[in-house]
């Protein structure tokens, strides 16, 4: 097999040995491995729902910020304090569809609240997600209770494919 060929048709698609032979094609993360051992995230400690419901919006946002950083740390394998929750969209942090689904399911289980996967993936920042959760987890009469910032994010034309 000529490994130097360009846009050659891959004509051994059913042969599992094909990519083993194509050695340079699947070593995508070689240079990532050079960065050192994968970060081992700390145990995640979800906040108490009772505490969240009783505190102010600002206090609740702070507690949820800490928790969401922990979950992002677990999914992305980076230290919580290094996660930029303000300036980057979720996929720029490394959240794709599968680990986005994992994040959604972990947060829904811990916080007992619905999280829309599409909105999570399209959020302009983790802070947008945190604000939305802080609104949803407040007391029933909270003006933030039905905040829909993530809905707005989901329907904002991203302008980039």
């Amino acid at each position, binding site marked *: 097999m000529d490994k130097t060929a360009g*846009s050659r048709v891959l004509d051994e698609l059913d042969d599992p040995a*094909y990519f083993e032979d194509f050695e340079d094609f699947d070593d*995508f993360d070689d240079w*990532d491995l050079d960065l050192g051992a994968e970060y081992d995230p700390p145990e995640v400690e979800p906040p108490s729902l009772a505490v969240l419901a009783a505190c102010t919006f600002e206090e609740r946002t702070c507690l949820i910020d800490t928790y969401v950083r922990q979950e992002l740390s677990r999914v992305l394998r980076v230290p919580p304090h290094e996660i930029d929750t303000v300036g980057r*969209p979720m996929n720029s942090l490394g959240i794709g*569809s599968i680990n986005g689904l994992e994040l959604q399911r972990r947060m829904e289980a811990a916080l007992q609240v619905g999280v829309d996967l599409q909105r999570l993936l399209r959020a302009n920042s983790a802070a947008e997600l945190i604000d939305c959760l802080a609104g949803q987890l407040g007391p029933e009469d909270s003006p933030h209770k039905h905040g829909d910032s993530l809905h707005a994010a989901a329907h904002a034309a991203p302008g980039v494919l």
Partner: protein
Amino acid sequence: MTGRAALLAEPEPRADALPAQDGLDVWLVRRPHPDRAADLEMDELSEAERKRAATFVRPTDGITYASAHIALRRLLGAYLGMAAADVPFVREPCPGCREPHGRPAVTHPDPPLHFSLAHSHGMAAIAVSKTVVGIDVERLPRDETVEVCTPALHPGERRELEDAGTEERREIFGRVWTRKEAYLKALGTGLSRDPAEDYLGAEAHRRPAGWTLLDIPAGPRHNAAVAVLGDRPGHITVRRLPGEALYAGGTVDLRPQGAADHATDSGA
């Protein structure tokens, strides 16, 4: 890009460059080594694309994103007979609200040219066809990710995962998920549609009617799949885009080399 597209003439595809009427072209793109990142032809990207590439926390993710978009522009430019930087991208109407933030597309070429792009951890995949198409590529998930995410799948998919051995689960989940996301991208809903709604498991006859799902071999660390509207394409080619095609001065050669177009039975 949409505003810019409005200023451009509609593309005139080269008939000899386009996929056959019943054809499907799939291109696999590898992220270049970071040492070669400076050689990527970033000038062909839009300002929004360049900004986006710079926002990734992991530099290698930014390189993957830029590589995927350069490849997409150069491939579509070659199919449409225009410069990569001029490919007129638009957004189709959202299936939910009809606002223009649905599936990415190129401006109304005649005959229509459909494409889909996906990228994940060092690999990008691009599908080009004259019919509606969606593609997905994903790195193999971790065991704990599979465990947490499996309950979100269709009951039939969940059963297949429960019946599988521990070693197989990551691979099976990856196959199911890439088929599912490829299908939802082709459908135009993306993940606004509940992942539990549609069966995309191993039994082809149970999958959504009117669609063809194909697994695309993508190496031992990734899964990839394509969804095509209608019957299985008669001519399917899966090609690797050479790294040089992403760099300044590089070009894309649409002609298969060393073999004729051929169908591949890559379904589950």
